């Protein structure tokens, strides 16, 4: 075609752009307020529900105690490894408590506390880390996916499950937890994209605790905040003070409500801090100074709530003591549970690889059985 054949030329020739051009959604409402949402210590705290707050407090104290007990168990050789959530209890507990019975929790390897706060027996929650089996509970019974070690790989699972529930017309929301480091993985990206395209009822909770083992956030991302990633998927991003349990719970509640109502997924970044080393096997002094840790101590999630509640007269000495007693009880039960030798059957190694054992596995099972019998005889 030559220019002569064309109708009109010059500045006025431009046709209206084809439809694919238009941005489909307005980005503005998806962008996080760069100031993290807070409730405790702000006028918003006036609206706190005293009963819920007392519950939060009791769970925080219990969570803190659980962390201490689990770490003690590693020192006693009763637990192979423990990634502590000291400092992150507000996120763990809000995540557990925001869900309805029928909802699903997708914890990362660090989030045993969330599972415990959801009602899972602590010994079962720690089975993986004790080393007797890979998962200590029936995920379907508790609607808690197995603690997930390969980072971010649980996120597409949460999306798929939420999507499946929605296809079946069930009222189910999935809450998936991941760390700041985990956001760098391809699976994070793919999961969020699927969730948004499918408008799946799923909430992504990123606990930005400042570190991926030794790697600080600044080496992990150059984004303004992790919550800003949301807009790239077309879902809202929210930033919250992860040590303020009331704030985390509010933001999560809103996201869960949206998801439940068919409004699609939300990405939430909870800014918090890993107060202890990556795990008991890690030496945090190799990569961070005390000053930073000290600064965060003044922003402790348990204390933040305790101060608010006592100042408001919602919590008194007796209430505090009650929470501590309950926590001690849990700790004692946990100690007892973990001190009991787990009953292990080596033949389990072959029992669940397939629905039906292959011939090769039968043969290998027979070999091991013979060895074990010979050992017993000897």
């Amino acid at each position: 075609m030559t220019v002569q054949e064309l109708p009109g030329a010059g500045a006025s020739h431009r046709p209206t752009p084809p439809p694919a051009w238009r941005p489909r959604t307005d980005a503005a409402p998806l962008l996080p307020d760069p100031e993290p949402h807070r409730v405790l210590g702000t006028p918003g705290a006036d609206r706190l529900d005293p009963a819920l707050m007392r519950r939060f407090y009791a769970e925080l104290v219990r969570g803190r105690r659980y962390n201490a007990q689990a770490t003690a168990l590693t020192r006693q050789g009763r637990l192979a490894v423990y990634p502590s959530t000291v400092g992150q209890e507000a996120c763990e507990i809000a995540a557990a408590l925001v869900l309805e019975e029928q909802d699903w929790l997708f914890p990362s390897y660090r989030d045993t506390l969330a599972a415990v706060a959801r009602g899972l027996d602590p010994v079962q929650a720690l089975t993986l880390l004790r080393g007797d089996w890979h998962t200590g509970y029936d995920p379907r019974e508790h609607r808690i996916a197995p603690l997930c070690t390969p980072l971010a790989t649980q996120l597409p699972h949460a999306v798929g499950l939420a999507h499946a529930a929605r296809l079946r017309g069930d009222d189910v929301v999935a809450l998936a937890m991941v760390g700041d480091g985990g956001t760098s993985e391809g699976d994070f990206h793919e999961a969020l994209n699927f969730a948004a395209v499918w408008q799946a009822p799923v909430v992504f909770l990123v606990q930005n605790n400042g570190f991926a083992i030794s790697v600080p956030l600044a080496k992990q991302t150059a984004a303004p905040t992790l919550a800003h990633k949301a807009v790239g998927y077309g879902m809202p991003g929210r930033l919250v003070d992860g040590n303020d349990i009331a704030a985390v719970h509010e933001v999560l509640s809103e996201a869960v409500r949206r998801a439940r109502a068919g409004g699609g997924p939300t990405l939430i970044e909870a800014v918090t801090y890993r107060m202890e080393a990556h795990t008991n096997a890690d030496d945090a002094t190799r990569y961070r100074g005390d000053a930073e840790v000290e600064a965060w101590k003044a922003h402790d999630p348990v204390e933040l709530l305790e101060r608010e509640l006592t100042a408001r007269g919602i919590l008194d000495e007796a209430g505090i003591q009650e929470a501590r007693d309950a926590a001690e009880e849990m700790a004692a039960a946990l100690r007892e549970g973990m001190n009991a030798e787990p009953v292990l059957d080596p033949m389990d190694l072959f029992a669940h690889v397939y629905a039906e054992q292959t011939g090769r596995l039968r043969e290998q099972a027979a070999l091991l059985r013979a060895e074990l019998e010979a050992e017993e005889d000897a």
Partner: protein
Amino acid sequence: MTTVAAKSAAGVKPATMAQALTRAMRDAMAEDPTVHVMGEDVGTLGGVFRITDGLAKEFGEDRCTDTPLAEAGILGAAVGMAMYGLRPVVEMQFDAFAYPAFEQLISHVAKMRNRTRGAMPLPITIRVPYGGGIGGVEHHCDSSEAYYVATPGLTVVTPATVEDAYGLLRASIASDDPVVFLEPKRLYWSKSDWSPQAPAAVPGIGRALVRRAGTSATLITYGPSLPVCLEAAEAAREEGWDLEVVDLRSLVPFDEETVVESVRRTGRAVVVHEAGGFGGPGAEIAARVTERCFHHLEAPVLRVTGFDIPYPPPMLEKHHLPGVDRILDTVARLQWEN
């Protein structure tokens, strides 16, 4: 064998493997509302090989879904769907494009049942068009079965006939375990007399079949190499060899009994597959068959495989693929004089 004409009254007419695969999914979806097909281009387009043709139309886009372009996401989402009780059937567009999903496959799909002591099996079927011989460019012709075979928890199935395409895919979708279902893409258009109304029952997963009885030596093969082996067996008659041909049909579980029985009888064996030889499935077969047939063997078990190279460009692939001559040359090396 009855003729096509004689059979057509009963709905039996030539069908391609592609059609049988489509039908298998269609029938599974019709019978079981938890079966969901998903992947890149599987919906509106019906897949680049048209294997999912018509499914989105018949069952809706929620049952046959065009996903975003991300294989780990596809398989990961399928894991979540299966956790909720669905039976996802995932299409990987080509062999090499399944690799991005390997972490999900190895660390989750293969392990979830075991991880949860059986509480959470994952009935996922992962369809992977594989192998060469179609003039495909790089990344479109890999025979990646070695990776799957070495991953405990996966069932690995591959049909070589139209009947098996239907029967094994139905069995795979019905399986409570994850199945990597390898579709020999160069056999997609192979034909057989076959009735979608009353598909012949075929032995299920884990059973090998003797496709041709013989006495001189056993060719052990599967998928795209089955027709080549049958052709070689025909050609071998001229050389005076009566070759038995065993079609494995499933690599995991591996039907040792059928293979061992054959090799003990013939005393000689050659494993034939397109995948590279070094560390390929043929190594396991040769090692195991030798272990169990040692004193029956007149010669070591030999292998005719793809070379240990990246899959060649289209113009050179004919040199790479195991062909009749290379199989016969190898049979000739089975120490007939001793």
